[in-house]
C-alpha cells in the first residue's frame, strides 16, 4: 500500500461522506439558511469562501508539517515529502478559490472586485509563495535534493499563514473580523447559518482528505517515472551511444 495514505475502504467512506456533506451544504447554504439581514443573499458565498480559506490553512499546515518531518533526520522519509507536495498543490487550488470567491462576494457587498487591505494582500502573497513552491517541485534534481529545498521553501512560506489569519486584528481592514476564531472566541453566527458554515468546513475537509490520497498516489507514480527515465538515460549511456533525445529531454 505504499502508493496510498488510506485503506481502500476508508477512502471510499471519505469520498461518499464528502459527497453527502457537499450535498447537504448546497441544500442548507443555498435554500435553508436565511438571507443575511445586511448583506442579503450575497452572504451565502461565505459558506464556500470561509471553508475554502480554512482548507488552505489546513493544506499548507500539512505541507509545513510534512516538510519539518522530512528535514528532521530521525523522521526523514519520502512519504513526508510527497505529502507536503501533494498537500501544497491542493492548498494553492483552495487559496485561488478563496480569492475568487472573495472577489465575487466583495463586488456586491463592498462595491469593488478587489481592495488593497491587509487580509487580501497577505492572501495574495500566500498564493504566490506556494505557486513558487510548486515551481520548485518541478525542478529536475535528485529526489532528496529537491525534497530538502522544497521543505525549506515551504517552512518559510508557512510564516505567512498566521499573518493572513491575524491581519484583520492587527490592521484596520475592509475585510470583516473573524466570525468564529476571533480573539474573543465569541462566534458571531447562529442557527442555520452556523450549520451551513460548519457543513462547509466538514465537506471541504473530507474532500481535502480524499483529494490528498489521490494526489499522493500521483506523486508516487511521477517519482517512479522520473527514476525510470533516469535509469533509461544511464543505460543508454552505458551502451556507449549518445543518449537518445527522449531520454535526455525527459530529464530537462
Amino acid at each position: 500500500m505504499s502508493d496510498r495514505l488510506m485503506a481502500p475502504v476508508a477512502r471510499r467512506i471519505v469520498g461518499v461522506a464528502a459527497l453527502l456533506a457537499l450535498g447537504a451544504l448546497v441544500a442548507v447554504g443555498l435554500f435553508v439558511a436565511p438571507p443575511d439581514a445586511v448583506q442579503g443573499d450575497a452572504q451565502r458565498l461565505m459558506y464556500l469562501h470561509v471553508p475554502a480559506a480554512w482548507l488552505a490553512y489546513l493544506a499548507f499546515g500539512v505541507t509545513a508539517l510534512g516538510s519539518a518531518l522530512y528535514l528532521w533526520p530521525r523522521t526523514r522519509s519520502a512519504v513526508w515529502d510527497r505529502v507536503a507536495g501533494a498537500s501544497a498543490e491542493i492548498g494553492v487550488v483552495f487559496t485561488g478559490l478563496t480569492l475568487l470567491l472573495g472577489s465575487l462576494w466583495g463586488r456586491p457587498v463592498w462595491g469593488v472586485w478587489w481592495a488593497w487591505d491587509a487580509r487580501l494582500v497577505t492572501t495574495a502573497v500566500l498564493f504566490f509563495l506556494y505557486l513558487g513552491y510548486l515551481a520548485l517541485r518541478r525542478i529536475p534534481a535528485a529526489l532528496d535534493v529537491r525534497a530538502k529545498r522544497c521543505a525549506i521553501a515551504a517552512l518559510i512560506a508557512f510564516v505567512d499563514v498566521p499573518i493572513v489569519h491575524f491581519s484583520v486584528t492587527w490592521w484596520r481592514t475592509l475585510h470583516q473580523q473573524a466570525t468564529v476564531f476571533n480573539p474573543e472566541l465569541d462566534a458571531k453566527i447562529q442557527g442555520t447559518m452556523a450549520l451551513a458554515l460548519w457543513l462547509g468546513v466538514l465537506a471541504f475537509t473530507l474532500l481535502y482528505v480524499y483529494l490528498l490520497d489521490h494526489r499522493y498516489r500521483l506523486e508516487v507514480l511521477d517519482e517512479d517515472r522520473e527514476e525510470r527515465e533516469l535509469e533509461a538515460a544511464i543505460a543508454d549511456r552505458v551502451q556507449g551511444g549518445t543518449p537518445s533525445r527522449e531520454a535526455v529531454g525527459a530529464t530537462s
Partner: protein
Amino acid sequence: MNLFQEAALVAGKDLRIEARARVISQQILPFGLIVLLLFAFALDPDRGVLQRTAPGLFWVTVLLACLLGVSRSFTVEADNGARDGLRLSDLDGSSIFLGKAIALAVELLVFEALLTVGVVVLFDVHLASLLPLALGTVAATVGLAATGTLYGVLAAGIRARETLVPVLLLPVVAPVLLGATRAWEASIDGVPGDAWPWVALLAIFAVLFVGIGMLAFGPLLEES
C-alpha cells in the same frame, strides 16, 4: 579562522571579482537608471505622480536589481566548478553564506546610493530626515541580501535558476518592499517618527533571514 574572518575572505573574493568584472557599474546600475526612465514614460511626469510614488519606484527597482545581483552571485560560482572549490575548502557553510550575503549587500548599497541620486534628480525628491532613511535602507538591504543569497543557493545548480529565483524570492521579500517604502515616505515628507516602526520591521526581517541563511546555506550547498 573564526566565522567573521572566513566570511570576510568569501566577501572579499566576491567583491574582488565584481571589481574586476564591473557588472554592477556597467550593467546593473544602467539597468536601474533605465527602469527609472521607464517609470517616467509609464507614469505622468507632470502631475507630481513620480515625486509622490518615488519611494515605491525606488524600491521596486532595487528589488529587480537584487534579482540580477543574486543571479550574478551564483553564476560566479557556477563557472569553472567554483562551487566544488567552495565545498572542498574548509570553510564553514555559515561563513560562506555571510560572506556572499555581505558582498551582495555592499553591491546593493552602492547601487542604491547611486540610484538615490537618480531619484532625487529625476523625480524631484527632497530627502529630509536622513537617519531613519539610511538605517531603514541598510536594514532592508541586509534583509534582501540575506534572503537573496539563501534562495540563490536553494536554486543553485538548477537549469531554470534565473526564472525560478524571482518567483520564489519576490513574494518572500514583499515585507521588505512594504517596510522600506513606508520608511522612505515617512522620512521624506511625512512625520520622521513614523519611520521607526518600519525600520524595526526591516531589522527583524534582516536578522531572521541572516539566521535562517546561516543554518540552511551549508547543507544546501553540499548537495547543489
